[in-house]
């Protein structure tokens, strides 16, 4: 239970970044009982993902792979490399999709009632940000062996219930696996892997995407 409080504490002193954050991170890491999701000092995570989508009509799941970039302050870039090439950018303000360099979807949270929730929820899930998720879900937290933990989420609002029936997040120092069950029975399992130990800073193209620009 304590683990996320510490994490929340880290979030709270965003303004003091630098030394203080590093110190806290080290302190938290020293205590084995605290399952700390690890991010770099500027809140950046890079890694790869594999998504399996299970549909009732198909025996085999549909699998997609790619890379992701998660910036605590700026949002998420989800770059699918196979079987299609597409980019999804989720920020607190908007959700946009690009296929072959073309923007195919642009939704602004200011006008789409469902979207703000989905965007907040997606960012919350990949950050395992319990405080943010609390607003939208009933949360059951369980700690496992070592520093592993699991969150079981049930949506509170009707609008969200129509999109997600249940969400499960598993992780240790990092978020490792996300299960999403849709109301009609389709479900996805997303595995996050190959986290970069020292993630490269944001590239100009990535910054531009997160700030509402286009892909290059």
């Amino acid at each position, binding site marked *: 239970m304590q683990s996320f409080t510490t994490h929340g504490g880290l979030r709270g002193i965003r303004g003091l970044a630098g030394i203080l954050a590093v110190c806290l991170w080290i302190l938290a890491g020293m205590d084995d009982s605290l399952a700390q999701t690890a991010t770099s000092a500027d809140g950046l995570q890079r890694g790869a993902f594999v*998504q399996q*989508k299970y*549909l*009732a*009509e*198909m025996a*085999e799941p*549909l699998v*997609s792979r790619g890379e992701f970039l998660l910036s605590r302050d700026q949002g*998420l870039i*989800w770059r*699918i490399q196979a*079987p*299609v090439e*597409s980019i*999804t950018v*989720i920020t*607190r*303000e908007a*959700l946009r*999709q690009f*296929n072959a360099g073309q923007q*195919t*979807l642009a*939704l602004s*949270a*200011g*006008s*789409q*009632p*469902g979207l*703000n*929730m*989905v*965007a*907040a929820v*997606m960012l919350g899930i990949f950050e395992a940000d319990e405080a943010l998720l609390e*607003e939208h879900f009933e949360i059951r937290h369980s700690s496992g062996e070592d520093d592993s933990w699991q969150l079981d989420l049930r949506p509170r*609002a*009707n*609008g*969200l*219930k*129509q*999109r*997600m029936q249940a969400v499960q997040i598993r992780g240790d120092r990092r978020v490792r696996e996300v299960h*999403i069950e*849709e*109301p*009609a*029975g*389709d479900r996805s399992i*997303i595995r996050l892997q190959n986290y970069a130990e020292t993630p490269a800073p944001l590239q100009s193209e990535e910054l531009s995407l997160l700030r509402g620009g286009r892909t290059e």
Partner: protein
Amino acid sequence: MRAGAGLWLALVLASGLGCVALFGSGHAGFQTNLLALLPAESGDPLRQRAYDRITAQAERRIIALIHAPEAAERIKAATIFRDRLRSQAAVESVVLGYQDNPDEGGPYTQLLFEHRFGLLSRTDRALLERGETEPFVARARNSLFGLGATRSHRFIDDPFGLAESYARELNQATPASGLRLDTQGRFETRAQSGRYYSVVFIEFHDSPFNFDAQAAQTSALDHALEQMRAAAPGANAILTGMQRHAAAATAQARREISIIGSGSALGILLLMFWAFGSLRPFLLSGMVIAGGCLFALTLTVALFGQVHVLTLVFGASIAGVAIDYCFHFFARRWREPDPARALSGIRRAISMGLVTSMLAYLGMALTPLPALQQMGFFAAMSLLGAWTGVILLLPALAGQPPRQARPLPLARRWWSFTGRPVPTSAGTRLPVLLLLLSLPAALYLTSPRDDIALLNSSPAPLLQAERLTQRLLGTATGGRALLVTGDSVTDVLQREAEFRAASPGGDDLQAISRYYPAPPQQRRNHALLADTLYAKDGPAATLLAELGFPDAVVQNHLQTFAKAETQPLGLEQWLSAAQARTLRPLWLPEGGEFPAASMLRLPPGAPDAATRRLIAADTRLQLLDQRADISESLAQFRQRAAWLLGAAYLLAGLLLWRLFGLGGALAVLAAPLTASAVTALLLTALGAVFSLFNLMAMVLLLGLGMDYGIFLRMADEDRVPAMAAVGLSAATTLLAFGLLAFSATPALQGFGLTLALGLSLTFLLASVLASGGAQPRASSA
């Protein structure tokens, strides 16, 4: 004599019981909505129906803009404000965000989903009409392989996401164009200064024109605001809505009644005590007038059912004229201490005053305007009731004759001032000359105003708040909309769509046709899909096979699509969907005498020339502008009231002619008529507004002026007591109604000012004309 008092008491009791019975049975009631005064027949019933729809929705709603220096504090304040209001019984709903909507149903309802092949979004239709299917295929792939693509239905039921795309467009039908959502789905709006406001929509159960409901609503809002400020001291709230205006008007009326009302009551009390040296005349006069009002109220309620409060106010003002009768009685007693003889000395004069006034006011009751009917009837009946009181009650309870006669010396001096120095011929010629000059000038120069703003005396901060809210949210108030009629749903929506296409900025207007495709369009949409995405071996079939769906599943989906062709979604059903909530009030279903009709919300401000031309060119389009329509009604009301006033003068003139001859009749009527004309000129010169309410004051002037003329004319050789009575009457009337000139409500202020100026002039002229006039022929008749 005692018997008279008993009879009067019995009459008053009977009236009181009748009144209680009528109100108790629920057949009677008070109307307080000012708009109910106006003739309903001004527009056609369809327009009225549209206004009723707009008003019923608007009058129960309040919009709150909440601001605080820090975003967190602002949100906290808005949340507390919402939560506190939600627990109040007067409140039907409080909405701070999408989650608060009682019928919020998520991304799309089952109903809309079932009709996904007919309800295409405009974006999708445009793409398909251009033959572009690639974006749809990309969309399908994204929803399988991409992130955040979660939905309430299976992928296979709508692989191209048609339903979601449609729902997204429909979601843009927000209650106000300037409204946005924060990341938590709460309403907010941003001013140009960069300042953010949280927006809370409140709906009450009842109309604020119901006094009890209004009080409960005000206390609910006050309570919530107090709690909000306690929790978030930096926050402030800007509230707008009909309830605020109604509450402000109530508070103002209460304040004015307590200040102006008690001021004038005290003034009258002191004046009468000074004049008669006892409280008895004051109390008796009060009883006589109150009895008259009660009598009139009972009859009015029995005849009309609903009585408007304003009718009551004006009617009761006119009943105040009856105080003249009392003064004549008391003044007479200075000379004739015996009550019975005093009464018989004035009976003829006051009866004549009664008959002429009743005739004049009953003439008003013959108009087709319900408010004037009520007012005229009430006034006539209250005079009759008061006259009965004077005849029955006063002699019985008159008590000792008044010891003092302080007004007499004054009256004598006034009399010698107005009567003696003027040569007899000039005494009549001067006022007649004045009349001949002022009346045409007044009729020519007075430019009346009939703006609804006259009914509205809302405080400036409230109006300012209203403008801010309108500017920020882009909502139009004042009931401005476009009414579209047609033979059928399809016809109406077709007209709507054509108008939106032709009008500048019309595409952005909130309208049903923007979001709902009529059944023929739904069939065309299905056909378009059948030609493109769902063509034989088209993108649907190939994509699904390529993704690896079993053939049976693919065939099943294609059949579902084919079967959907025959069942378009009807408008009524579509309107029942949660997403269409904000558009529901715009539809007026066909029924009875009414054709199918819809309303289009127009942006604030007057429509541009191009839009006006479009509306003028098609009889099925009508501009709804409640404000302008009400002003128009007020103008009609005023014009008719002016004619009626003319007719009342004529009727009274005929009667007076019979009594006093032509010269006498002219002399009696010249006083109020000239005074009215000169007052109108003075008001114009002062730059004051001339409206219906000034005219109503002139109606009162007619009654008063006639009484003065008749009493002075019918007094015998010593006219001084009559002069004193008339002077006292003028002074009390000035105290009672002239003080309204200090009211902050433009209507009452106009009424008071006109009365104050007009009555002073009437008094002066009546004095001069009575002295110059011949002895009444009536004394020998």
